[in-house]
């Protein structure tokens, strides 16, 4: 009876058994990476808007306070997308004839809202509340990044549950003095000591049970 398999099959089979471990391990690792990448989470993707509104210009260069537009961020779950009237407060006189702003004026004339594109869109089964975060000393920039440096806003965080829960389990790593919440460029060298002190002072509980966010 002739040999069925060439002798090289021995090497091949040994390598494939050994290699399978690395192949499976590598695939799983790759999946974990892709899952957390901007490809899956849309982090880092700047969104086109109906009007090319620049946060960098308004917040960074002109120095408008976040709350000038996002009026309800301190008392409501939603930060509030400003109505067209807020734009017109200034743009009735500044750039009043600019063709770029024609959609804003059209919206003001007709009373139809501008359809802004939502950048930070949490799943519907998550009940997120801006006010509690603001009032316990979590800065806007902690989640939204340096919006004052972005022309078109993009998501900087993954918005994955892992990311939420990281902070909920250890708020001290991110909490800041309440008066610095709206300061986009605030930074401290000693977050550890400050965080521990503020968590105590603001009575921040590390809450990571399901019903905090899923009701």
């Amino acid at each position, binding site marked *: *009876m002739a040999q*069925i*398999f060439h002798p090289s*099959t*021995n090497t091949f*089979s040994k390598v494939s058994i050994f290699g399978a471990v690395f192949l499976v391990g590598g695939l*799983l690792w790759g999946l*974990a990476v892709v*899952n*957390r990448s901007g490809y899956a989470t849309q982090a880092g993707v700047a969104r086109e808007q109906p009007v090319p509104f620049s946060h960098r210009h308004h917040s960074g260069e002109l120095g408008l306070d976040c709350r000038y537009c996002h009026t309800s961020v301190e008392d409501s779950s939603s930060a509030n997308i400003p109505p067209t009237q807020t734009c017109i407060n200034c743009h009735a006189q500044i750039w009043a004839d600019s063709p770029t702003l024609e959609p804003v004026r059209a919206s003001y004339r007709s009373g139809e809202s501008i359809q802004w594109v939502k950048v930070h869109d949490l799943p519907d089964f998550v009940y997120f509340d801006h006010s509690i975060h603001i009032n316990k000393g979590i800065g806007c920039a902690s989640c939204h990044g340096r919006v004052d440096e972005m022309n078109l806003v993009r998501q900087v965080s*993954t918005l*994955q*549950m*892992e*990311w*939420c*829960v*990281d902070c909920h389990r250890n708020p001290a790593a991110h909490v800041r003095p309440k008066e610095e919440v709206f300061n986009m460029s605030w930074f401290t060298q000693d977050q550890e000591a400050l965080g521990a002190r503020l968590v105590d002072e603001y009575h921040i509980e590390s809450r990571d049970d399901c019903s905090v966010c899923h009701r």
Partner: protein
Amino acid sequence: MADKKPTKGSKQKGAPVSAGAGSRSLSSHLPPVVEPGYTMATVADKISEVVLTQNTPRGWYIGLAFSFALTMLLLVSITWLLVRGVGIWGINVPVAWAFAIINFVWWIGIGHAGTLISAILLLLRQDWRTSINRFAEAMTLFAVACAGLYPLLHMGRPWLAYWLFPYPNTMGMWPQFRSPLVWDVFAVTTYLLVSLMFWYIGLIPDLATLRDRSPSRTGRIVYGLLAMGWRGSARHWHRYEMTYLLLAGLSTPLVVSVHTIVSFDFAVAQVPGWHATVFPPYFVAGAVYAGFAMVVILAIPLRRFYGLQDFVTMRHLDHMARIMLATGLFVAYGYMIETFMAWYSGSVYESSLMNNRFTGPYAILYWSLLLFNVLIPQGLWFARVRSSTTALFMIAISVSIGMWLERFIIVVVSLHRDFLPSSWGMYYPTFWDWSMYLGSIGLFFSLLFLFLRFLPMISIFEMRTLLPESEVKEDLG
């Protein structure tokens, strides 16, 4: 060179297989494990012929066609389940666990006989296990496959089943390790993997025999790949023996642990009828009971159909009947203690549960359970019953039904009336409940028929060690 004289050549090295020689003299008063008149070559001929023949028996086609039709019913049911959700079953609050969990426990239990036969009886050097271990192990695998379907489908979103495993996920969460449902995942996965390895490693020398005997080139290549280069050298046999023994050691605790953990799914909860300390041993005994019943159900038609009465002898059936009798008594003791504790605890909930079992809307099922699982199997005390294949077959069927009813009583009857009368309800199975159940039986038998056709259902090389020929070699050595 070595693989040119496979059947005899490989066997001479195979002599160290220990399962047989020693205990045979002790049990000489019993009927033999192999009928006399066989040689090394004729054993291999007889068993491998079933696989290597060109003429597949017509009965095999009929059996497979029937089981395959039922498997299609399973596929239809699963598809409809995925389209519509678990609402197509009769489950609702308060009975949110019903057929899916009953069938899961039933199938997992059936698998236990295979592991017990292959691991514990090997370590105890029970040579009679040799003729039944291969197909009992296959039975275990197929039963675990059927069992595994149910919890996955019961989840509602089976495509997220991987959430059950602890891995660094994007939710920053681990499974709830305090829940026995998570232990179940580990227990069943381990069970499946170890059983699969045990079965496959036991097959390797036989796959090599098939490779060497196969008349077709395709057969030689396929069996050759599966045999992983087995040549039957002394080194191969040495490593094989070591691996097999280690795996037997690894499987032994699984016989006890898997069904213990399945019982924790219930016993850790506070529902009357579940919260009992007797559950783990009672479940394990029930599993072995149901498992041996299934082995008997399979062995009796198989040995007749394939003419294997010389290998699976009346002695095997007798031993299995005795094990069924013993484990059946454990189970009966479990029923007794449950009833006793309901009274002795003084808990109004426990005693009203018992009352509900005896006289409630499902009482007929409880009395049938006692009939099928306790009363009818008492026939096994009599040697005349144990030596009648018809009677044994009927009793095994009765036990299978009884064990299914037991799980129905535990799951449904406990849930449908718990602490608050305002939340009481009834459970009635729907068409899709039944179709899933029948479908999984179809899947089980389809896999079994394919196994019978393509792999040796009895271990060829281990059977040879039971022959008088193999004993001579020890003198030579």
